[in-house]
């Protein structure tokens, strides 16, 4: 089975490609795939016939209970026959129907239909419910694409959207049902779930499970109140309608209900709900079928009514109901597909779909008329057609079941309407005189005639000679659904039974409907309110309101004011902080033996706070920048005083660069701030800042009180020289112990540089003479070259000695960037660029390559070392110890240099423009 499924999938992807090169007969070629699959399934018939079940399973994600298990029993088998058999005919028919379309369009249609067929097969074959959901959702999505095939028409798009919204919502219900079932019985196997239906029924979740299953089935099978998507889906090309609405898509809901019938029956109200919903659906659909104007719409509503009958049959108890359900499902698939084909042919040949304006088509389309007649007789349940047999079953099941008269009455009336509709759609277009002449564009072709004719003939021959199909498909299907073998006897003549009498009643009423169709039809059409207050409109209105609501919400949340976003974020962080402190339990602590206060540092920090205060209060951004810089420098000195020379170096270099870079930017923008906040907002912001600061302070004090000596720091301190061959522990952490982290950070800087190159697109010469005119003091200009080289040499020394003394790639790169900053300030950006020779992004790329490359030799050493395991080599003699960390650190150096220089040059050019 998996093989067949795979063939279907691969064939669906590849075969339609051939249709791009074949004109006529492409449909016949495409039909080879479904028919081949049909043959494959018929080959499995002996298994099914004996009532055996064939299972295949592959472990997929066992931890999630997701196994790719397939299961073929009688019911699945019947579906497979219908899907592939009718699928093949649909392919042939589409070849003729789409002959006026472009080859690409046609090929797309074939692909969609074949994929849809594959998804259908997967759904009915899957045993694992999670796998079934995947295929089930695939049918929803593919039907969306098929219904919206004419995507340039807004009506198609609307219909496709509606079908997707409804069926996908039902799909979600199925997911919910599956998860609940998995929760209750601990497995996702459908067979298991059905076997243990009583267990599920006894669980408190049972009502929820049953409701969710019903929702999934009702949406898919177009039951009230979700029925309206189906008539709209007639926007699809007719061959697609024939496939989707006869044998496949809409029958999935029935499939699901029939499978889970034992579970539904466990609840006291399950069957009653099914019958009630089915009755409403049937009654409503019958009226709409008489009201429908077009051929296809009439068929669509009759399909809804038929689905109602099927749901009712699932709801009824007793073996006869199952027999009737299987029989009707089979008969309906055959005649409904044929009728859709006929409707398509009429539409194709005349370009008209409205029944009232058609007539007399038996002359130009004789074979189509014959097929339509045969299929209609089956639909009307006239002996000796298959439809008659299935209708006998239906009445038998109703009389045998324990139900009252109401469903029976409705069933009789609905069947009478079916007779009427069948009569009208045959007589009106084909045999009655047209009111005005109907133009026929073309006659019949093989592709357009063979499929409906074949199906109509099948409806006749199978009822006259039912042995094979009963033995192979119907009896096993009934057994699979009912759970035990049931006698199924398809015969036209049952003798004089109550069922025959009911049939006679049905046909008589049906004949009356045919006689007075025009009057009934026009009377119903004048009831405009039926459209105004239809559920369809309610649905559309609610979908529109939903969109409107979400737009309003989005506008409120994504209002476009940066300040609002930031306030939300800051309050969120503060809130979480307070929440964490409040829930951690215990009072806030205060450090008991804190280190004593040192006056010089206090004075220094007060200076830094002053800088921050100025930055916050000043209305001139230049003084703000200086304030921020002042704070940065005091922090750098603080680092220095507290045993962090590496940090001090880095901070100094960064602060110097910030000043150079931001000044370059500030040259381009106004320095005095325009008022952007009202007084009230100023106060609010002040309060928020105060709250945040206070929270941060309390949190830090509490954290400091609970501080313990870090075992990680201690371990690193011990291992640094032994394992990392470096005296400077900070640097060893960066390049060795946490090398992978550093690589990540370097990549972030590289990405920033990339962003810089695209943001500050290198503008061609920003008026070179302008730069020359800038008043740079002569001494600075001369000294700059010396300064440049001194800084470059210093940066290299810092880089080299970093492993043992304060320094390293980050500081080195920043220092080298400073050298270029000095140069560009003194001699202009172009001169500095000329000194660099290569473009900055090249440096970034080379640096990134080095950092990654440094990690590879360690990996190749072969004793299972991970990426970025650093290696060391001691050549002896004068030569110092060499290690891959040096390559790594040099990479860091280059990335930092390249990135900063990218922005330096970019901002200087952009700012001077």
């Amino acid at each position, binding site marked *: 089975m998996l093989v067949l499924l795979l063939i279907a999938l691969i064939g669906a992807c590849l075969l339609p490609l051939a249709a791009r090169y074949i004109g006529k007969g492409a449909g016949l070629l495409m039909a080879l795939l479904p028919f081949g699959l049909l043959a494959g399934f018929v080959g499995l018939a002996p298994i099914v016939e004996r009532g055996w079940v064939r299972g295949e399973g592959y472990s997929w994600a066992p931890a999630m209970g997701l196994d790719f298990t397939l299961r073929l029993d009688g019911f699945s088998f019947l579906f497979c026959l219908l899907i592939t058999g009718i699928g093949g005919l649909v392919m042939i028919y589409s070849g003729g129907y789409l002959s006026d379309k472009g080859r690409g369009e046609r090929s797309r249609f074939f692909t969609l239909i074949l994929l849809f067929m594959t998804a259908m097969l997967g759904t009915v074959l899957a045993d694992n419910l999670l796998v079934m959901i995947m295929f089930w959702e695939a049918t929803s999505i593919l039907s969306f694409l098929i219904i919206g095939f004419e995507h340039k028409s807004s009506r198609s798009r609307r219909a496709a959207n509606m079908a997707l919204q409804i069926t996908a919502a039902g799909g979600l219900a199925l997911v919910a049902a599956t998860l609940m079932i998995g929760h209750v019985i601990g497995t996702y196997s459908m067979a298991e779930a059905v076997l243990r239906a009583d267990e599920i029924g006894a669980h408190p979740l049972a009502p929820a499970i049953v409701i969710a299953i019903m929702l999934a089935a009702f949406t898919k099978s177009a039951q009230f109140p979700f029925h309206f998507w189906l008539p709209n889906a007639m926007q699809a090309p007719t061959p697609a309608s024939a496939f989707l609405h006869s044998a496949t898509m809409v029958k999935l809901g029935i499939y699901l209900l029939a499978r889970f019938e034992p579970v539904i029956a466990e609840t006291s109200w399950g069957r009653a709900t099914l019958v009630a919903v089915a009755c409403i659906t049937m009654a409503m659909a019958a009226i709409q079928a008489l009201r429908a104007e077009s051929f296809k719409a009439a068929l669509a509503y009759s399909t809804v009514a038929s689905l109602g009958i099927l749901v009712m049959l699932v709801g009824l108890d007793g073996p006869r109901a199952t027999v009737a359900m299987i029989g009707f499902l089979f008969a309906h698939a055959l005649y409904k597909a044929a009728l859709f084909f006929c409707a398509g042919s009429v539409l194709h040949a005349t370009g008209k779909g409205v029944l009232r304006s058609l007539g007399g088509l038996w002359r130009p389309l004789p074979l189509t008329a014959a097929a339509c007649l045969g299929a209609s007789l089956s639909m009307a349940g006239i002996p000796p057609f298959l439809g008659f047999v299935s209708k006998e079953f239906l009445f038998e099941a109703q009389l045998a079941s324990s139900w009252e008269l109401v469903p029976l009455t409705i069933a009789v009336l609905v069947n009478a309407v079916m007779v009427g509709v069948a009569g009208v759609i045959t007589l009106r277009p084909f045999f009655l005189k047209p009111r005005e002449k109907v133009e026929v564009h073309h006659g019949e072709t093989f592709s357009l005639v063979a499929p409906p004719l074949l199906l109509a003939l099948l409806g006749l021959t199978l009822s006259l000679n039912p042995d094979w199909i009963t033995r192979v498909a119907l009896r096993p299907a009934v057994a699979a659904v009912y759970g035990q073998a049931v006698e199924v006897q398809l015969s036209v003549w049952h003798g004089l039974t109550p069922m025959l009498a009911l049939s006679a009643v049905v046909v008589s009423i049906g004949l009356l409907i045919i006689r007075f169709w025009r009057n009934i039809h026009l009377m119903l059409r004048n009831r405009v309110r039926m459209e105004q207050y239809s559920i369809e409109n309610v649905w559309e209105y609610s979908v*529109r309101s939903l969109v409107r609501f979400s737009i309003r919400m*989005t506008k409120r949340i994504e209002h*476009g*004011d*940066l*300040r609002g976003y*930031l306030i939300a974020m*800051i309050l969120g962080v503060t809130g979480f902080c307070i929440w964490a402190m409040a829930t951690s339990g215990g009072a806030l602590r205060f450090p008991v033996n804190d*280190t004593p*206060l040192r006056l010089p540092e206090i004075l220094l*920090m007060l200076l*830094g*706070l002053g800088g*921050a205060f100025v930055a*916050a209060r000043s209305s001139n*951004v230049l003084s*703000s*920048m200086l304030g*921020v810089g002042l704070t*940065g420098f005091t*922090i750098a000195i603080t680092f220095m005083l507290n*045993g*962090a020379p*590496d*940090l001090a170096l*880095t901070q100094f270099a*960064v602060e110097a660069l*910030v000043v150079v870079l931001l000044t370059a930017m500030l040259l*381009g923008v*106004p320095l005095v*701030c325009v008022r*952007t906040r009202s007084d009230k907002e100023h106060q609010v912001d002040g309060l928020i*800042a105060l709250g945040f*600061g*206070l929270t941060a*302070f309390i949190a*830090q*004090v509490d954290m400091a009180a609970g501080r313990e000596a870090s075992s*990680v720091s201690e371990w*690193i*301190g*011990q291992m*640094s*020289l032994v394992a990392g061959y470096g005296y400077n*522990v*900070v640097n060893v952490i960066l390049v060795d112990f946490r090398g992978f*982290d*550093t690589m990540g950070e370097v990549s972030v800087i590289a990405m920033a540089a990339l*962003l*810089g190159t695209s*943001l*500050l697109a290198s503008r061609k010469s920003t008026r070179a003479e302008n730069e020359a005119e800038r008043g740079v003091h002569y001494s600075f200009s001369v000294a700059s070259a010396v300064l440049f080289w001194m800084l470059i040499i210093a940066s290299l020394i810092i880089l080299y000695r970093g492993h*043992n*003394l304060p320094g390293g790639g*980050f500081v080195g790169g920043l220092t080298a960037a400073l050298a270029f900053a000095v140069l560009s300030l003194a001699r202009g950006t172009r001169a500095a660029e000329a000194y660099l020779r290569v473009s900055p992004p090249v440096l970034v790329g080379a640096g990134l390559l080095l950092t990654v490359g440094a990690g590879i030799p360690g990996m190749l050493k072969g004793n299972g070392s991970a990426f970025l395991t650093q290696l060391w080599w001691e050549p002896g003699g004068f030569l110092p110890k060499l290690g891959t960390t040096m390559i790594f650190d040099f990479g860091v150096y280059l990335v*930092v240099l390249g*990135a900063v220089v990218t922005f330096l040059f*970019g*901002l200087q050019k*952009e700012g001077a423009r």
Partner: protein
Amino acid sequence: MTVFYAFCASCIMGFAIYMLLSRNLVRTLLGLSLLSTGANLALFAAGGFGSDLPPIIAQGAEALGVSADPLVQALILTAIVIGFALTIVLASITLRIWRATGSLDARDVTLPDQKNLADMERSVE
């Protein structure tokens, strides 16, 4: 000392938040730069002020003696550089916004999303 530094870091972050909330993009980016400075100081204070000796192993010694916490320093070192990168990226974006819109007010920057939203609203009506 720790409490004092915690106080200073909180003050700096508070001032930074106040700047950040300004709708002037230059002030916002300066505020962000200040915020990262304050956060670094807070992180540094979390390492404690046990010793003012740098975490460098003395010549001849095998392991690190008494010194400042090296781990915190390694974290802060990269944080300084990343914060710097963030500042200059923002500076570039701000400059481009100024060139494109002639305004530094964050409210004048309309996102494409909001235009889409307006289009969508029209289509629903």
